[in-house]
């Protein structure tokens, strides 16, 4: 593998990422799967990087899920996106940043549509005004939250307490990076590094001391897709997509998977459990599975935040082996305690996927 070839491509796909004064919109469902992630992002931006980041509690979904599931027509989506922009304009912001990758894809798609078909923009303005009385200005920059963490990865590295190095072997951790399809497959120029060899997560891993694994099914979708996934019987397709990726990455013995989409880590984490229950097969070291992290969780770990504050206890694939590899201390007693310190009980143990603590 000649890294210069990839570097050449990364130079071709650079993009403008705003520096400060962000208007932040959250994901619809991410808080359910990864409760600590969005909070961690805000904490990193405000406390560590001293950036101005604002969110308006009356913002809504971008309707990406509905749009991609064929339930919400595109005109409605455009109007909902316009309302988000209106809230941004009213708050005096120009830099838009999204938590969800599908949102990012949808906002990019809407802005591109308005750019190439100005009459749709005019119609959307009319719809929005008639429905809510609001007007809006288009943002001068739309970035995904992972772009921002990418942009400030050096600062995070400087403030960081831990590196992505296996302290037992002294070797860099082997990290699989997986971007959400909507990040750059639709508009390669809107993703750092393009679609073939995206750099947004690779850059973070390189900066924080890890080693990126390039494996054959790197480009394959995790299977989320929305439309088929909502119908239970169709999930076989989704789980098979993730399985293909696991089979392909297994020989490389990755230590963890890093993702930047809400759906992908949910899938890659939960499907390892489902596959183990359906077929008895686990991936990763000794039946523990391959831990899956979001970029905020990884940034948080690098900065030395408490793993349970990051929400890592709700991951299906146990995170403790990874914490031990890096040398991050954690308190097993606090794993299943809430903010008040009360015991919230234990989840049911999987049949094959090993779980911490092994004894319930």
């Amino acid at each position, binding site marked *: 593998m000649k890294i210069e070839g990839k570097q050449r491509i990364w130079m071709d796909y650079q993009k403008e990422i705003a520096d400060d004064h962000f208007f932040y919109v959250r994901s619809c469902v991410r808080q359910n799967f990864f409760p600590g992630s969005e909070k961690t992002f805000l904490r990193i931006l405000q406390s560590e990087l001293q950036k101005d980041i604002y969110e308006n509690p009356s913002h809504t979904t971008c309707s990406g899920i509905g749009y991609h599931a064929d339930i919400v027509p595109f005109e409605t989506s455009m109007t909902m996106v316009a309302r988000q922009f209106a809230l941004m304009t009213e708050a005096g912001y120009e830099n838009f940043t999204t938590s969800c990758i599908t949102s990012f894809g949808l906002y990019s798609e809407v802005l591109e549509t308005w750019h190439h078909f100005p009459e749709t923009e005019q119609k959307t303005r009319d719809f929005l005004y008639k429905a809510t009385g609001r007007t809006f200005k288009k943002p001068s920059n739309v970035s995904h939250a992972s772009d921002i963490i990418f942009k400030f990865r050096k600062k995070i590295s400087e403030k960081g307490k831990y590196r992505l190095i296996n302290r037992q072997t002294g070797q860099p951790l082997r990290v699989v990076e997986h971007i959400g399809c909507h990040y750059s497959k639709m508009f390669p120029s809107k993703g750092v590094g393009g679609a073939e060899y995206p750099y947004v997560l690779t850059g973070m891993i390189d900066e924080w001391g890890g080693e990126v694994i390039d494996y054959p099914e790197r480009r394959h979708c995790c299977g989320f897709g929305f439309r088929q996934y909502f119908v239970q019987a169709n999930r*076989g397709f989704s789980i*098979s997509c993730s399985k293909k990726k696991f089979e392909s990455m297994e020989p490389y013995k990755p230590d963890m998977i890093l993702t930047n989409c809400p759906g992908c880590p949910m899938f890659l984490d939960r499907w390892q459990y489902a596959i183990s229950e*359906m*077929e008895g097969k686990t991936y990763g070291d000794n039946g523990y599975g391959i831990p899956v992290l979001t970029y905020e969780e990884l940034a948080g770990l690098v900065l030395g935040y408490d793993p349970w504050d990051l929400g890592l206890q709700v991951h299906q694939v146990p995170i403790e082996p990874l914490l031990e590899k890096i040398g991050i201390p954690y308190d097993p007693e606090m794993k299943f305690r809430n903010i008040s310190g009360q015991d919230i009980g234990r989840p049911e143990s999987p049949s094959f996927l090993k779980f911490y603590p092994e004894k319930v």
Partner: protein
Amino acid sequence: MNFRVLGMKSFGYTITKDRQIDFDQNDRKVTGYINAIESSIRLCIGCGSCTGTCSAGHFTDFNIRRVITLVQRGETDQLKKEIRKCMLCGKCQLVCPRGVNLRNLILTIHNILETYGI
């Protein structure tokens, strides 16, 4: 890693089988035997003239062009079932522009499947 045949959880869906031809995993033993005995199979360019005129192909899903291509890829699981649909009328051989000896090819396939108990 231990397997339990009974007691596997069901979630309301199953893991879909990959339909991609995995060329390296396919057992190309039968392909090798066929190529050795009737080497004109190698001349096929997939033009489809054979299938277009095939008597059996009009009323069943038998597609001799596709069967030959699948043989070359090592996809021989369905071969026994498919090849029995051929009635050996010979119309395919009459039109083949490359001179593939199709009737002999089909008889060869029958013999090989018989000989190796497939």
